[in-house]
C-alpha cells in the first residue's frame, strides 16, 4: 500500500498566473480582505489537504499596472484564518534577511497557539536592493550570505521555541512561584549574523516546534533545507529528476546525521485545470493574453483533473516524493477543481487521506512532537 501523499497549496493573490485576477471567477476587489483567504483555506480544508501557504516579501513584486500589486503580512493573515478553520496547516512565508529572529520565533509560536498546533514556517530571504532600501540598515548581501544567515535564523528561532520547557509554568502556590525557572533556558546564540540571548517571551507552543519548510529554489536553499527543514519543496521536471534530487537529499541528510524519514520531500507543481485539454489550453492562452506568461517552472500540468490525478499517483508510486506543493494558476477556480475533482480520485485510489486523523500540522506529516532539546527529563507533555 502506498503511503498517503502530503499536499500543500499556495493560496497567493488571485492565483499563480499573473493574468488570474482578470478571470471572471476571480474577485480581485476582495484580495486584501480576510474573507478572501479564509474562504480559500476552508476550501483546502474541505479537500483534507495538509496545509495552505502564503507568500510574503517586503517589496512590490512588479511595476506592471496590469498585475496584482501589494500583499498583506502573511503570518498575520493566517493568524486571522486560524479561528475560522479547524485542521488545515497554516504556513506563512517569513523572511530572515531584514527581520529579527526573536520576533520571528515568538510570532510563529503564537501562530501555533492561536491555531492550536497548525503553524509552519516557509523560510525565505530578501535578495533585492529595493528591500534593503526599505530598511536602510544594510546593503544587499550575496546569496551565500543570505542563505547562511537564513540557516542561522532557523537555528536560533528553533532554539527559542525550546527555550521554555513544556512544564515550565507550575503555578505553585506553596512556594509562590509561577514558573520553575530551571525549565527556562538562556539560548545565548552567537552566530556570524546575530547574537540572541533568550529565552523567548513566549512559552513552548502546542507543536513544540512548528514545521520548517524550505523551498529549494537553488542549491543554497536546498542545503539549508537538508540541514534544517522538516519539509523540502523541490523543483523536478520528471520522476527521474525527482529521484536524483531525492537521492541527493538522502545523502545530504546522512551527511548531517539526520534520518531520511525526518524530512518530507514535496514536488512543486503549477496547475491549471479544465474539463478538457483544449479548454485548459484555451484558458491558459487567455490568461497569457491578460497578464503575460507565468514564469516557467519545472513541473506544470495544464489539462484535466483526471490526468493530474494520474500524474500525481504515478509520482507517488515511484516513491520519489512524499507529496506535492500545488500552485493553482487561478483562485478559487483551480483550487475548487482540485478539491472537487482531483482529491476524490486520489482518495479512491487510497493515495491521500479521506479525513484528518490528527489535529496538528505535525500530525498531518506523521512527525512526532519533538522532545525539548534542553529538557533534562523526558517528561514532555503532549498537546
Amino acid at each position: 500500500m502506498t503511503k498517503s501523499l502530503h499536499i500543500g497549496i499556495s493560496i497567493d493573490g488571485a492565483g499563480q498566473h499573473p493574468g488570474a485576477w482578470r478571470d471572471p471567477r476571480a474577485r480581485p476587489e476582495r484580495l486584501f480582505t480576510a474573507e478572501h483567504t479564509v474562504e480559500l483555506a476552508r476550501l483546502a480544508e474541505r479537500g483534507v489537504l495538509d496545509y495552505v501557504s502564503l507568500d510574503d516579501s517586503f517589496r512590490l513584486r512588479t511595476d506592471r499596472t496590469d498585475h496584482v500589486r501589494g500583499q498583506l503580512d502573511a503570518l498575520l493573515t493566517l493568524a486571522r484564518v486560524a479561528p475560522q478553520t479547524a485542521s488545515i496547516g497554516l504556513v506563512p512565508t517569513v523572511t530572515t534577511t531584514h527581520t529579527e529572529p526573536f520576533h520571528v520565533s515568538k510570532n510563529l509560536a503564537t501562530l501555533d497557539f492561536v491555531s492550536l498546533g497548525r503553524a509552519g514556517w516557509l523560510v525565505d530571504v530578501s535578495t533585492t536592493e529595493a528591500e534593503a532600501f526599505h530598511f536602510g540598515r544594510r546593503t544587499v548581501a550575496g546569496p551565500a550570505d543570505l542563505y547562511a544567515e537564513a540557516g542561522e535564523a532557523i537555528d536560533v528561532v528553533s532554539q527559542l521555541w525550546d527555550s521554555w520547557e513544556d512544564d515550565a509554568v507550575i503555578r505553585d502556590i506553596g512556594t509562590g512561584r509561577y514558573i520553575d525557572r530551571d525549565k527556562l533556558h538562556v539560548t545565548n546564540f552567537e552566530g556570524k549574523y546575530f547574537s540572541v540571548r533568550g529565552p523567548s517571551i513566549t512559552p513552548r507552543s502546542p507543536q513544540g516546534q512548528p514545521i520548517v519548510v524550505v523551498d529549494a529554489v537553488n542549491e543554497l536553499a536546498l542545503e539549508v533545507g537538508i540541514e534544517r527543514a522538516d519539509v523540502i519543496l523541490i523543483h523536478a521536471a520528471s520522476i527521474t529528476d525527482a529521484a536524483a534530487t531525492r537521492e541527493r537529499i538522502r545523502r545530504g541528510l546522512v551527511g548531517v546525521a539526520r534520518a531520511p524519514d525526518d524530512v518530507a520531500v514535496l514536488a512543486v507543481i503549477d496547475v491549471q485545470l479544465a474539463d478538457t485539454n483544449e479548454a485548459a489550453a484555451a484558458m491558459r492562452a487567455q490568461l497569457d493574453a491578460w497578464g503575460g506568461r507565468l514564469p516557467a517552472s519545472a513541473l506544470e500540468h495544464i489539462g484535466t483533473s483526471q490526468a493530474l490525478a494520474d500524474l500525481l499517483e504515478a509520482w507517488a508510486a515511484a516513491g520519489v516524493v512524499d507529496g506535492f506543493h500545488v500552485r493553482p494558476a487561478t483562485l478559487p477556480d483551480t483550487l475548487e477543481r482540485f478539491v472537487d475533482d482531483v482529491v476524490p480520485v486520489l482518495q479512491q485510489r487510497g493515495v491521500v487521506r479521506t479525513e484528518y486523523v490528527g489535529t496538528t500540522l505535525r500530525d498531518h506529516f506523521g512527525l512526532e512532537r519533538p522532545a525539548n532539546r534542553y529538557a533534562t527529563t523526558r517528561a514532555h507533555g503532549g498537546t
Partner: protein
Amino acid sequence: MSDKPRKQVHLAAHFPGVNNTTVWSDPQSGSQTDFSSFVHLARTAERGKFDFFFLAEGLRLREHRGEIFDLDVVGRPDSLTVLSALAAVTDRIGLAATLNTTFNEPYELARQFATLDHLSNGRAAWNAVTSPDAFTGENFRRGGFLERSLRYDRAGEFITAARALWDSWADDAVVADAESGVFIDDASIATFHHGGDEFSISGEFNVPRSPQGHPVQIQAGDSDGGRELAAQQADVIFSRHSGWDDGRAFFADVKRRLATYGRAPDDLKIVPAAVAFLGDDREDALEKAAHIRRQQVSPQGAIAFLDRCGDAISRRTIPTVRCRTSTPTSAPRSPAAGCATSRTRSRWPRSGGTSPRPSTSASVS
C-alpha cells in the same frame, strides 16, 4: 436634568498578563497564553461596548539578581498575531497592541499594522513605546544601541516614517478593473523617502492603504518627552494619574501642549488607568477587593519586594520619589526597580512602559 447631552467616556480593557499584580494563584485564573483566554476577555469587553482591547508587550523576561523572576506571571504570545486572530472572533472592538519602536523597523511594523487594520475592517491601534535599555537589546541584532535621551526622538521619527508609508498609497489605489486590465494605476502608489537621524529609508510600500488610513495612535509615556510626543502625534494617551487633582493637572498639561501642533483639545483622548472591584454591594466589593489584594502579595513576593526595595528604602526614596516599576519592557536594573507595586496599584508603569496596571477583576472573572 439638563438637556445638554452627556459626554461619554471611552473604555479600554487590558489583558492582565505579565505583571506583579495579576492574581495567578486563584483557582479561577485561566491560562495566560491559550488563545481561549484572549477570546474570552475580548468578547466580554466587546459585549460591554468597550472602545478597545489592549495587549502589552515585553521583549525580555524580567530578572532579579541575575535570575529570571519566577514569582509573577511570565510568558506571553505575540500581540499582533493574537489580535489578528481575535479579529476573526470579534466584530467591533478595537484591537490595540504595544509595539516597541526601538527593536522594530518602520517598514515591517507599518505593514503589520496596516495588515491588522485590513483584517479587522479598521480596528487597529498602536501604543508606541520606546526601550533604550541594553538589557532588552541582547535579544536583538543591534543590541542596546539607543541612548535613553534619544528614545522619544526615535519614537517620533518612527511614527512619522510609518505615516509616510501608510500615506504613500491613495485610498482608492486598487482599481482591479478586469475589463481594462488596470489593477493599480501607477499614480496611486507614491514612492516614499524618509531621511532622519534614526531612519533613512526610501522606496515603495507594499500594502494598500487600510480602512482607517492610520491605526489609532496611543502613547503611554508620562515624562515631558512622552507628553510632548503624545501632543504631537497621538490620538490617545494612557495616564497613570488617576487621582482627582493629579488627573486634572495631567489633563490640563497635556491638552495645553496640543495647540503648539495646531491640534484641538479633543484630538487627544486621555485614558487613565482604573482598577475596579465589583461586588453585589459595597461591602461585598470591599471584601472582594481585600481578598484580591491579599492574593496579590504572596509571602515570597513580599520578601522579593523588600529585597528589591531595600536599598531604595535606605535612601528614603520611596515616599518621595516614585520608584520605577518593573515593567514588561525592561527588567529591573536598579535596586529599586520593581518596587512601588502594591501602593501604586492603579498606576501605569514608568514612562516608556507598556502596560497599565492590570484590571485585577478580569483575571479572576
